[in-house]
């Protein structure tokens, strides 16, 4: 029994794990040669958000809210690309299933969706760069460290979080 972690300890552990899993797919998403990488990264971001929502009470403070928002941005940035990936795959499969002389309409549709998806990749790459810039790992380490200090001590005039945020947000 006594080997069970506390709620906060477990939350810290799970959030770190989910964050690592999410970030581990970034290179595959950038390469874009396998649609599963993007799917996996998006699913990992959703799982991470579920964990953040569950353990929010263990990490009071505005930096946690900002962190949550940045993770949601990952899910959102990959959403449209994922929807297109799924659609292209399904359309291709369906196209194969009808008589050859009836495929022209489906074929045009697949081509149009492929073009949309290729265009989207630029946005995906931009989102990945943004994620890197936001130092999610380091920021969560700090959140976790501050969470175990009694709250009155944790309030500082200039929180060290600022140093880890992109300049545009520290104004």
């Amino acid at each position: 029994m006594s080997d069970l972690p506390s709620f906060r300890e477990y939350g810290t552990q799970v959030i770190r794990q989910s964050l690592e899993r999410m970030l581990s797919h970034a290179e595959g998403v950038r390469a874009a040669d396998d649609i599963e990488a993007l799917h996996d990264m998006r699913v990992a971001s959703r799982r991470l958000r579920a964990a953040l929502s569950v353990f929010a009470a263990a990490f009071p403070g505005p930096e946690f809210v900002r962190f949550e928002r940045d993770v949601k941005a990952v899910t959102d940035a990959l959403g449209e690309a994922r929807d297109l990936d799924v659609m292209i795959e399904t359309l291709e499969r369906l196209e194969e299933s009808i008589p050859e002389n009836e495929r022209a309409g489906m074929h045009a549709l697949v081509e149009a969706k492929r073009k949309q998806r290729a265009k989207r990749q630029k946005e995906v790459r931009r989102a990945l760069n943004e994620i890197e810039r936001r130092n999610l790992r380091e920021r969560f380490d700090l959140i976790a460290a501050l969470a175990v200090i009694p709250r009155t001590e944790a309030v500082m005039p200039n929180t060290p979080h600022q140093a880890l945020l992109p300049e545009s947000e520290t104004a």
Partner: protein
Amino acid sequence: MAKALPVLGVDPDNSIHANAALIIPVRAAELIAWERYIDDPARVAELHQMRIAAKRLRYTMELFAPFYGPEFAAAIERIKTIQEQLGQIHDADVLVPVMTAQLTAGLRTAPKKRKPDETGVYCADFDAAAGLLALCRRKRDEREALYRKFLAAWKKMRANGFFESLRAMVREASKRGRGEGERGRPSVRRARPTTEGRTPNAVPGGGRNGKSEREPRAAAPARRAGGDDTGAGSDSGEGFEEGGLGQHSLFEEGDAR
């Protein structure tokens, strides 16, 4: 997308089981809140929202799975099935309008936009249109079958008291301090010593000793969380006190496919 509701009463110094007993019922109520729409297969947006709520409940439960037993794992599988059925329904609901747009665009080509040879009986590619139309109809039929399957699976879960049992399971585990059927240690290790400086009084050993004084506090917000936060689900007959432990084995019953 509907946002996840906040859960009142979660105390980071309380045990994992005590907090799970507050959080899981709220996520379950968020899923149940969409139940009122499911008898109408044309409620496309609501079925999609229900899928999102199912996914949220599933991921939340999976976070706690290491601290519960096989009944809990079986419950996750049931939620996953529902979520996947709703996912397939949604995919069809997205796909058919896209194919329909392509179909109508192919038939409605304005005379000016036609190529020189697209004239007279050749004004449109009817074969291409036939292909698209056939697929639209096929997808609609598949969707209707999927919907019926989903509805049957959901109604069966409800008839079996799935959510009542789930709530009873997490409530009982919260009282006992661990999940039923859990054998040995959970597959999670304690966090590194850095977080231990504070010796949280919520480490389960402490939770057991301090049980009598902690419990009322944990139980009261549970009802508040259910009442305040889940207004949408409250009229679907969801009481937090229903159900009994004896129903746990119902998770194993029946097939959802």
